[in-house]
């Protein structure tokens, strides 16, 4: 039996998002919220593993009250327990405060029944930091394996997992002792076509609400804005700088143009 924890985040659907050119901030009005796509991979993986090995799935998220919708959707993947951390005092958290809050919550949840696997998306598409998963692992004192692309095997008796991890140079095949925290790449698992039974369960579900003053005991100064040394100064879209040279073939001969191109490529040491 696998005891799985999945941590998710509700994000604006950035395929629809536009940036207000005057203020540099995201226009969130009318943009639908979705579960961070990499977290959907984590949920999908949890769903497959639960069906293969049996066990249970606990899903947590921290966010405003409407993040309950993300958790209700997470139920469709066969979750057994969904928990929403929502409180004014959690608001404004950076990755440091977020990983503290999540880690303390996870410690509380596994008092009696420890998790074998902690699944996180590799990063959230709105912040792109990729820090919360590793941050939680450090606080839980469990190994972290980032950018996982494939689970090759899980041996529950020996408590061993073998998996693939993407690096800049290639693929690492790693054997690790459970429990581990892994962050999921998009190829790791396909979204299941979930059955009607789970859709209906999800519709009827409501998350448990955890606040700043309970049931988990937090150190107040580590929560939310207070516990966040990071401050966002400005959000902007980096300008793509392209130096384009245009040669007009009606005024320049093709031979001349080709020579010029070769010259530039040599200069830049491309050829």
């Amino acid at each position, binding site marked *: 039996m696998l005891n799985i924890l999945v941590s998710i985040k509700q994000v604006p659907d950035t395929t629809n998002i536009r940036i207000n050119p005057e203020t540099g901030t995201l226009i969130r009005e009318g943009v639908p919220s979705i579960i961070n796509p990499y977290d959907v991979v984590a949920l999908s993986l949890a*769903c497959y593993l639960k*069906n293969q090995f049996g066990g249970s799935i606990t899903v947590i998220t921290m966010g405003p009250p409407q993040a309950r919708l993300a958790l209700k959707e997470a139920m469709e993947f*066969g979750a057994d327990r969904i928990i929403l951390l929502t409180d004014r005092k959690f608001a404004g958290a950076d990755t440091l405060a977020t990983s503290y809050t999540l880690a303390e919550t996870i410690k509380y949840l596994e008092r009696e029944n420890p998790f074998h696997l902690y699944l996180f998306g590799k990063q959230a598409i709105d912040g792109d930091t990729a820090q919360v998963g590793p941050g939680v692992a450090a606080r839980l004192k469990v190994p972290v394996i980032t950018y996982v692309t494939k689970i090759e095997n899980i041996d529950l008796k020996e408590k061993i997992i073998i998996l693939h991890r993407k690096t800049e140079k290639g693929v690492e095949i790693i054997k690790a002792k459970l429990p581990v925290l892994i962050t999921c790449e998009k190829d790791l698992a396909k979204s299941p076509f979930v*059955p*009607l*039974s789970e*859709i*209906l369960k999800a*519709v009827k579900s409501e998350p448990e609400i955890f606040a700043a003053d309970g049931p988990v005991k937090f150190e107040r100064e580590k929560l939310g804005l207070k516990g966040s040394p990071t401050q966002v100064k400005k959000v902007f879209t980096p300008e793509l700088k392209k130096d384009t040279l245009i040669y007009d073939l009606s005024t320049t001969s093709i031979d001349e143009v080709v020579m010029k191109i070769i010259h530039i490529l040599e200069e830049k040491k491309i050829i």
Partner: protein
Amino acid sequence: MESYSFDVVIVGGGPAGLACGIKLAEKGVNTLLIERGRFCGSKNLFGGVVYTSSIKEIVPEFPEVSQSPVERPVTEEGYIFFSTKGVVKFFHTKSDSQEAFTALRARFDAFLSEYALKKGLLIAPKTKVVDIILENFKVSGVIVDRPRSFKDLRPAEVKAKIVILAEGVNRLLTEKAGLVKGPFKPEEVVLAIKEVLQLPKGELEKRFGLNEKKGLAAELIGEITSGLPGTGFLYTNTNTLSFGIGIFLNTLVNSNLKPYEILERAKAHPYLHELLDGAEILEYGAHLIPEWGLQGLPKLYGNGVMVVGDAAGLVNPLFREGTNLAIYSGIMAAETALEALEKGDFSEKTLKSYEERFKESYIYKDLLLFKNLKKFLLNNRQIFETYPNLIYEIFSLYFSAQGQYKKEVVREIIRTIKRKRGLFGVLKDIINLGRLFW
């Protein structure tokens, strides 16, 4: 093995299905609404005006609701006739109106579904009904595309005492239930193409002379459809514009024009070109409008089944009524379902009272009144070709009459009419149009 059983299953989460669902949930009926989109409204499209009177039937507190689902109140309403040279506008202005609002379906339907959830309606999203279950000549449930469970991959079945089909214009299940024969014909539907446009900040108010309490709803006739039978529309939303064109599918096919070409041509008309200058397209969509009217009306009920909204073809294009009729038909089906549940009889005999309710309503009387309109419009293309140009010419003459003997201007106007359509033609058109409604 889990099996699902409800008193009522509603197929489709548009205004018809949701109105029906709200009424049933309020009475505590064990109801499931199945919607194929990610949320109600995510796949739905209309031009863009809703009416307070019908919404109040299901949401009595409307428009005094938190997080308003509508865009702007309609304070300016009218027609713009497009000739090749320019336009003639007829507008009716109200100082303050709460009777009609412009709206976008993704928000409006989502609001109704939120409201329905609060009333206790169960809504299963992302699920498509693929078939109905027939037992002893009675509809006794539906089959969906999703498997039963992670272990049992057969398509899930949902049993119901009554199935209400609010499936929209394509009405495939209505056909499967035997309530209508075969698919609809191209001349029975209008293809509507729509863009949601955003103008540079502040330009919407400036170009349309609006403030935040005012909104415009205009129907566009003439050159806008390249002279094909159909109309265009232009509605102002809070920050955007809904602009689109609807054309009978058969004439569109015969014209050899692509839908987007019609829209591009329309936007190139000098009047619109200036009005929409600098607009950014936020959304593009297309949808069929059922205009088969009474002639193509399906049987509205059968054993264990009723049809509502677009699936039945309940629209009145001339008065922009589709959402209205959807809501009213949903309510009538809900009332009938309550009656049937009380009696414990779900056969045709009991559900027939849905048709009786329908026939007493203004929907039926309107459909009866407009039953020959479609044929008239399809057979009298001069309505869309000749008249808008003629109206423009007449007004051009009238407004440039200064410095001329006015009798001569009137003669010139009559000559123009004679040239364009002929007095006989005009008289014939008037009589024919009159006969439609007499």
